[in-house]
């Protein structure tokens, strides 16, 4: 397998312009002769579908939900970054590029990240033109806030529902193309496999989630924008339907999977409170601007927070990181919370929580001021926990949130399978080993609005064989395999001794990953996970109960298919975590720490992207390395002290 990143030559700032000039173009009259499949209708998929259709391509867009507007992107709260420098606080494209590379702990490609920073400004222009109601200043200009520990104010937002407003903009653009007949929208359709013919992506096999019909769809290019795989952990902040199936099927058909162990664990989520729990709720990171994180100094202190005097509280982030304090990056905040809880200082019923206290902010700025800033978050917290955070400190704990890893793509966002492009959270491209707050929305929209419209033409213009036959042999064979899998999943249905539900297996896998491939990882734990996963998988295929039939709407079957893929994919995550013996960003290998217990990178051995090639379900994948070179920034050890 050849990993050619196709990074354009020339100076960093000119690469994207130069590349767009060098790319072959598809003649405007010929665009209508090309069919493009887009899987996913989140920010990446909706923006790509709309933009490609506007250019004249015929687009078919698929999503799992009943409406494209419900894709997981809708849930993003905090905001979207851009290098507009409206605040005159020293921001620039280069600074956004630099912060993203550094935040990612020097494990992302310079050229991709620079392009991302460049187009960030066009995204804001585009969204405003669509009527996205961003927050505004009194003068009518756009407002910004600082977010996720950035030293400049570059985050654009719409209350606590930025993702919703951006997605409604992209969804509007998509529906406009539906009306114009350039996009065929196929909701409640799940991609089950990728069709690869003569080494080239030619289409997909889907299941109609209402009728159960298995369908073949052909196209000249396939664009995956299917989101992240955080739900491998069972509990995460992701929506329930988020899954790895589409990406994993592509991997099994030959697309390399890059850095799958890079999983972001967000520090401020509502703690787990029962074994029935189905998902975790994020509390926006902006809360750390005013909330102080603490635990009791004495392990096992079960007193109510109000009864613990100031002198017996440990404000551990402020103590350990005097210059960043409560605003350290996500990975650092998460790890420290875990460390405190491991030391027995965790609070709440389970001991797996720390306090986020607004008492001082309320004393300083008044209750009304604090309410104005965080009222909706406090309300949401109270709805879930029945506690009022202005009276009693909030309890928070880290939770799986975002996956930096994903399918490997080159500068054109094309995977190792020609004709298969991957956008948004589903690819690995821009965030290295840790993503900065408000940068995922930026990347999804950059990929969909600005990158893919330019790069896909380069592929299509040079395409040799344009005849695609969805009734042909390859399609039929792929479809048969998908049908076979469904029959196998249903074969185990029916109750009986030793039978377990799909959720039960998923929860077991999630706990295992959380334990051994979560916030801190070590050789022994990872080896154990690697041994245990195939055993769970084996039992799953024998004992999972999947009621109902394949010929109708069957949510149990849908879940079973996704969990089956997680059970295979988890192994690739663990293998990747084992291979990377350094600590970097979110990935803390306990064996690789500084004397002060901070993550220790190893640039001489691990300054590479780890891209994995599928070799079989029961064999380990093969590692390919894409070396990373830094010509414009100097990798340094991150320090937030």
């Amino acid at each position, binding site marked *: 397998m050849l990993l050619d990143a196709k990074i354009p030559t020339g100076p960093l700032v000119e690469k994207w312009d130069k590349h767009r000039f060098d790319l072959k173009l598809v003649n405007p009259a010929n665009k209508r002769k090309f069919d493009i499949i887009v899987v996913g209708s989140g920010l990446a998929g909706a923006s790509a579908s*709309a*933009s490609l259709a*506007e250019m004249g391509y015929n687009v078919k867009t698929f999503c799992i*939900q*009943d*409406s494209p*507007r*419900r894709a*997981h992107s*809708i*849930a993003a709260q905090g905001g979207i970054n851009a290098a*507009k420098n*409206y605040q005159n606080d020293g921001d620039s494209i280069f600074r956004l590029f630099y912060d993203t590379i550094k935040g990612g702990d020097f494990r992302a490609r310079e050229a991709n990240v620079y392009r991302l920073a460049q187009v960030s400004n*066009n995204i*804001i*222009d*585009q969204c*405003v*033109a669509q*009527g996205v*109601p*961003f*927050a*505004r*200043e009194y003068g*009518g*200009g756009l407002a910004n806030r600082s977010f996720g520990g950035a030293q400049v104010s570059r985050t654009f937002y719409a209350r606590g*529902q930025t993702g919703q*407003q951006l997605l*409604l903009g992209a969804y*509007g653009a998509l*529906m406009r193309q539906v*009306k114009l007949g350039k996009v065929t*929208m196929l909701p409640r359709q799940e991609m089950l496999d990728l069709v690869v013919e003569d080494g080239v992506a030619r289409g997909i096999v889907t299941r109609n989630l209402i009728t159960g019909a298995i369908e073949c769809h052909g196209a000249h290019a396939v664009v995956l924008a299917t989101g992240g795989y955080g739900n491998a952990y069972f509990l995460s902040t992701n*929506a*329930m*339907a988020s899954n790895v199936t589409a990406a994993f099927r592509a991997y099994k058909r030959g697309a390399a999977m890059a850095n799958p162990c890079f999983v972001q664990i967000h520090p401020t989520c509502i703690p787990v409170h*029962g074994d*029935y729990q*189905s*998902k975790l*709720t994020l509390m926006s990171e902006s809360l750390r601007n005013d909330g102080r994180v603490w635990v009791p100094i004495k392990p096992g202190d079960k007193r109510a927070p109000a009864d613990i005097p100031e002198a017996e509280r440990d404000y551990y982030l402020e103590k350990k990181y005097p210059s960043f304090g409560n605003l350290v990056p996500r990975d650092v905040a998460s790890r420290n919370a875990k460390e405190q809880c491991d030391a027995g200082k965790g609070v709440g*019923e389970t001991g797996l929580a720390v306090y986020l206290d607004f008492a001082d902010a309320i004393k300083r700025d008044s209750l009304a001021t604090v309410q104005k800033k965080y009222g909706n978050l406090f309300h*949401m917290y109270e*709805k*879930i926990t*029945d506690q009022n955070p202005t009276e009693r400190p909030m309890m928070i704990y880290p939770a799986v949130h975002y996956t930096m890893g994903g399918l490997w793509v080159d500068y054109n966002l094309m995977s190792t399978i020609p004709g298969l492009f991957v956008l948004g959270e589903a690819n690995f491209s821009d965030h290295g080993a840790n993503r900065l707050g408000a940068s995922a929305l930026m990347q999804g929209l950059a990929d969909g609005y600005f990158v893919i419209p330019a790069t896909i033409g380069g592929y299509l213009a040079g395409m040799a064989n344009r005849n695609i036959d969805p009734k042909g042999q390859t399609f039929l064979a792929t479809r048969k395999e998908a049908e076979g899998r469904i029959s196998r999943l249903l074969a185990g*249905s*029916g*109750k009986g001794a030793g*039978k377990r*539900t799909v*959720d*039960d297996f998923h929860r077991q896998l999630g706990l295992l990953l959380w334990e051994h491939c979560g916030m801190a990882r070590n050789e022994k734990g990872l080896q154990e996970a690697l041994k245990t996963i195939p055993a769970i998988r084996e039992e799953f295929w024998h004992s999972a*109960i999947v*009621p109902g039939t394949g010929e*109708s*709407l069957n*949510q*149990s079957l849908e879940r079973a298919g996704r969990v089956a893929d997680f059970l295979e994919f988890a192994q690739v995550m663990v293998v990747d975590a084992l291979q990377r013996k350094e600590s970097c960003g979110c990935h803390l290998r306990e064996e690789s720490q500084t004397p002060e217990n901070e993550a220790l990178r190893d640039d001489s051995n691990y300054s590479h992207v780890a891209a994995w090639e599928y070799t079989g379900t029961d064999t380990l994948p093969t590692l390919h390395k894409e070396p990373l070179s830094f010509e414009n920034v100097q990798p340094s050890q991150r320090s937030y002290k």
Partner: protein
Amino acid sequence: MSDTSKIINLTLKIWRQENGASAGAFKNYPSGPISTDMSFLEMLDVVNEALTRQGEEPVAFDHDCREGICGACGTVINGQAHGHQQGTTLCQLHMRNFKDGDTIVIEPFRSRAFPLIKDLIVDRSALDTLVAEGGYVSVNTGGAIEANTILVPQQTADQALDASECIGCGACVAACPNGSAMLFVSAKVSQLALLPQGKPERAKRALAMVRKMDELGFGNCGNERECEAACPKQISITNIARLNREFFKASLFSREK
């Protein structure tokens, strides 16, 4: 589930229907022990897990984000869309709002424009069709001007966002005795009528979306205000007044047809 004071038992009367063509009926299920900390959907998960273990098909219901923003969830609980708590989606309704021994009636959104698919799942794609009719600004990617050349007074932006908070759940339609989608349409029309970006297509949008609404089988607005009461995002019916103004102005003065 250690804290027994937090455990309740309920009787659930749930609508079961194999598909749109078959007949449906209520079936009774004991909930088993339920923690009052659970959300309504987590309670349904527990019931479904038990059904699965007994070899029965679990109850089908739509859901995804489980934090009140995607608009996927929604059924009628004891006669009210999304349940009795104001301004709350079903996924945000917690079981502490119910008492031990309660009987809860759970049925799908019922409306002419929302055909039933299975159990509690209905087809709300008519709402997408309405948006396709004009719920956007017709601007192609790449054609945008520098963002800060469009100034929007803060108050206007806030009002537009109030309207744009609609999650497209369809509760307003289900709650309306006439099955009207006026609240949904008015939220989109208002957002774009308020903003300078939406002005050029203002008349066309109002006319097209209202006409499409009739065509899709949604009823007329009879000023019953049930929609506003059911709306989990508390979209105000003042938006309907604005839509009416937009529509009449457009029908009287506009050359759009």
